[in-house]
């Protein structure tokens, strides 16, 4: 109950951050502080970096998204303010997942933590990229389109590094760096999808709204890959 209360409270803070002026910023900072404290609490109680199950990973994505928003999107007055809802959305998604406080010995590797930490950053960047793209489609502001590209390019590079770290970890843990499973195929689909977006932007006929739409829709591919493959396709369950 305590866990649920903290998360719902942070979601409320992020929702209230849409209001104009100082009040909105304070609510956003309130949500960030609450999440940060809760993640530190999880770190202390589990005894490991809380990136080993979907519950904690979604909360980390919420926190990292919030930090990225604080760092790169300072324009309170513009439509970009709606992006402040993202961290709340991820925090809310976490309540549908089980808290797992233990890790198997095979996960106890620096490469595993590196893989998931980079994945969390990439996921956050892709999400903000999608959200900024959505706002570009409404405003047609070229600067926002450039922002979307920057976020997605950074996300793609970090996602690639995450895949490299994941391959090294899996080779050290299980002797293979690639598996033929639906989960891995969907991870490749995500990578190819954003590769398509980045290359598509070089073509004049796709550059602008069409490329932006492709970038916006990326969040659906990403979310399905992370949360939908196991329940929808019946792929074996994974803890993280």
């Amino acid at each position, binding site marked *: 109950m305590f866990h649920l209360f903290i998360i719902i409270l942070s979601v409320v803070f992020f929702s209230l951050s849409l209001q104009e002026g100082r009040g909105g910023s304070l609510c956003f900072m309130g949500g960030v502080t609450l999440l940060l404290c809760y993640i530190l609490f999880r770190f202390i109680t589990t005894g490991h970096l809380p990136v080993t199950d979907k519950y904690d990973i979604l909360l980390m994505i919420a926190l990292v998204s919030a930090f990225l928003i604080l760092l790169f999107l300072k324009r309170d007055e513009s439509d970009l303010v709606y992006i402040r809802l993202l961290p709340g959305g991820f925090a809310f998604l976490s309540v549908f997942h089980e808290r797992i406080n*233990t*890790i*198997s*010995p*095979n*996960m*106890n*590797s620096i*490469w*595993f933590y590196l893989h998931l930490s980079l994945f969390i950053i990439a996921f956050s960047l892709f999400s903000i990229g999608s959200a900024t793209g959505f706002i570009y489609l409404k405003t047609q502001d070229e600067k926002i389109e*450039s922002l979307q*590209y*920057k976020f997605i*390019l*950074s996300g793609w*590079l970090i996602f*690639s*590094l995450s895949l*490299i770290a994941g*391959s*090294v*970890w899996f*080779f*050290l*843990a*299980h*002797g*293979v*760096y*690639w*598996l*033929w*499973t*639906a989960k891995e*195929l*969907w991870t*490749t*689909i995500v990578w*190819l*999808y954003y*590769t*398509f977006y980045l*290359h*598509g932007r*070089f*073509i004049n006929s796709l550059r602008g709204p069409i490329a932006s739409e492709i970038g916006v829709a990326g969040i659906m591919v990403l979310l399905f890959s992370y949360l939908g*493959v196991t329940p929808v*396709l*019946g*792929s074996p369950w994974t803890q993280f």
Partner: protein
Amino acid sequence: MLRVLKSIKTTLIIIFISMSIFLTGSFIIPKNLQFFSEINDMPLFKWLSLNEDIKKTFWIYLSILAMAFLSLNMIVCLIDDLLKRLSPGLLIQRLSPHLIHAGVLLVLLGHLISASTGFKKDLSVRRGEEVFLNDMRIKIEAVEFVDLRGEDQSRWRVHLEINRGLQWSTAIAEPARPVFYKYAIYAKSAEPDGRVILGIVHDPGAKWEVAGAIVFVLGAGGLFWSRFRAGNYK
């Protein structure tokens, strides 16, 4: 033909086709888990030669074909762009995307080598017992439990003696920390009574994967530097 191969539109078409193929595969695997149960236990081409049900494996052949076309496309684009645009002034900016492409090519080459060569084997061995593996002898000297919490949380160390020729040497294998001694030797599981499952892996493609990863990381670093530090992200 060359014009088609060096076109970015070709890249987009191949990527789109590849995504469709993997999408198809992601539906086929969960519906045929029994059929695909051993695909990750041996090199891909060996598995394909043993499992000839084309209705279930056609998408793997198509994905190999798509990756081959994508590789060709990347090689042609890489050479074409290097010949046309290389100038010493903006070397990092120009080279970084090519390093990324070269990294991906090396990773794909690694996959190809892994799919066609190497082996994986699980051996059940007891403490004090010796196993022979081609020109190598492996002996379990001791099994040590670092953290015995039961279920899947226990952590263990397997003390090994390995012999190749005249010399014996010692090594310790732990979960996620294999011993690299010609082959990669994994301590997959251990029981308090001294029974151990050793995983033996020989994967010649892994070196190419690592080389590809390093080249990719160099390219990614250069791209970050040139696109963001220099403020040139278009």
